[in-house]
């Protein structure tokens, strides 16, 4: 880091390559989902880059680095817990609704799902398809949709609620 602060870009790159496995192992202890863990690692690397001017070369680097890593990881976990704090209706629940005998008797699952999704506004439909059908993370969806991560999560949450309500109505 000392060399990097003096303008040595090669040393800066070597530093990032050296710390990435450490950060990966640190994050994966708390975040099991690989793409999500990799997102957090990238966030930490970016934070280390942005806070590089606060590092005092006279002090141990790892203590400074892990202080940032812990902060970013906690930030990430706090976001997740905050979102799961709301009543969460997942598409898996919706699948159960679809799988109930009275529904499957009437129509094919995927057709039913398509029909349900078509009732959503275009933006919400795209978010649900990206996150639940194609398996993208909220962050990836946010980038693709040019929205903030929290806006994506809110829109997805609303869409799940609508879908669950409609599924229940159909069941009746």
């Amino acid at each position: 880091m000392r060399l990097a602060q003096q303008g040595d870009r090669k040393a800066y790159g070597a530093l990032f390559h050296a710390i990435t496995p450490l950060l990966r192992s640190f994050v994966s202890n708390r975040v099991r989902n690989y793409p999500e863990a990799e997102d957090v690692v990238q966030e930490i690397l970016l934070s280390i880059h942005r806070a590089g001017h606060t590092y005092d070369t006279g002090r141990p680097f790892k203590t400074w680095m892990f202080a940032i890593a812990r902060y970013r990881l906690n930030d990430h976990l706090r976001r997740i817990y905050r979102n799961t704090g709301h009543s969460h209706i997942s598409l898996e629940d919706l699948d159960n609704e679809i799988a109930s005998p009275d529904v499957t008797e009437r129509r094919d699952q995927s057709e039913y799902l398509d029909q349900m999704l078509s009732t959503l506004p275009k933006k919400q439909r795209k978010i649900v398809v990206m996150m639940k059908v194609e398996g993208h993370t909220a962050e990836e969806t946010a980038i693709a949709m040019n929205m903030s991560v929290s806006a994506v999560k809110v829109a997805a949450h609303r869409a799940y609620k609508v879908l669950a309500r409609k599924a229940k109505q159909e069941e009746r």
Partner: protein
Amino acid sequence: MDTKQLIDQLVIEGAQKPLPGPMRQTLVWLAGTSLYVTTLTAYNGVRSDIADKLGNPRFALELVLLFAIASSAALAAFCLSRPDAHQKPWLRFVPLGFLVLWAMTAFSGAPELTAADILQSLTAGQFDCPWNILMLSVPPGVVMFLIIRRGATIRCCWAGGMATLGATSLGYLWMRMIEQNDNLAHLIVWHAVPILLMCVVGMMAGHMALRWR
């Protein structure tokens, strides 16, 4: 974007130049603030009995402890502007130690105060004292907040609280130099309690303004 691409991008941007150390930041801030306080004191004039008061060891110790609170709080705030608190997390408790010592020195006669004394002081409504402390503390406090914001603060409430304590304790020191009132109830009600309230506000301001995103 995969991690390797991200690293390549960060390398192209290069590392930033390091900030000056917290001790240097503290010295610069203290020098600037002392100049500001001296100018204000020269403009307002000191209390007429200042020579006698400075001969009183308790009063002198009170001023020394106030300066110690201000300088240690400033140092703690600047250390807290680093994500690792400059690897001295204990430093934020030092000003609190000085604060206790100062309270024991300045308010040693407080147990003899009666509720009537406090009530009388309250009804006197001397709002100019906290107002003067606030007015003196705002410019150095704002400067300190701006310097802290250049860092990457993780403990933002602590940093805000320490910055406010540093600035307001100098405001208190200044008031002791210019105001010829040593009434204990007055000092508690119109000087010390407002400073504590200002520190609580400073902590909230720190939470809002200093949070590293």
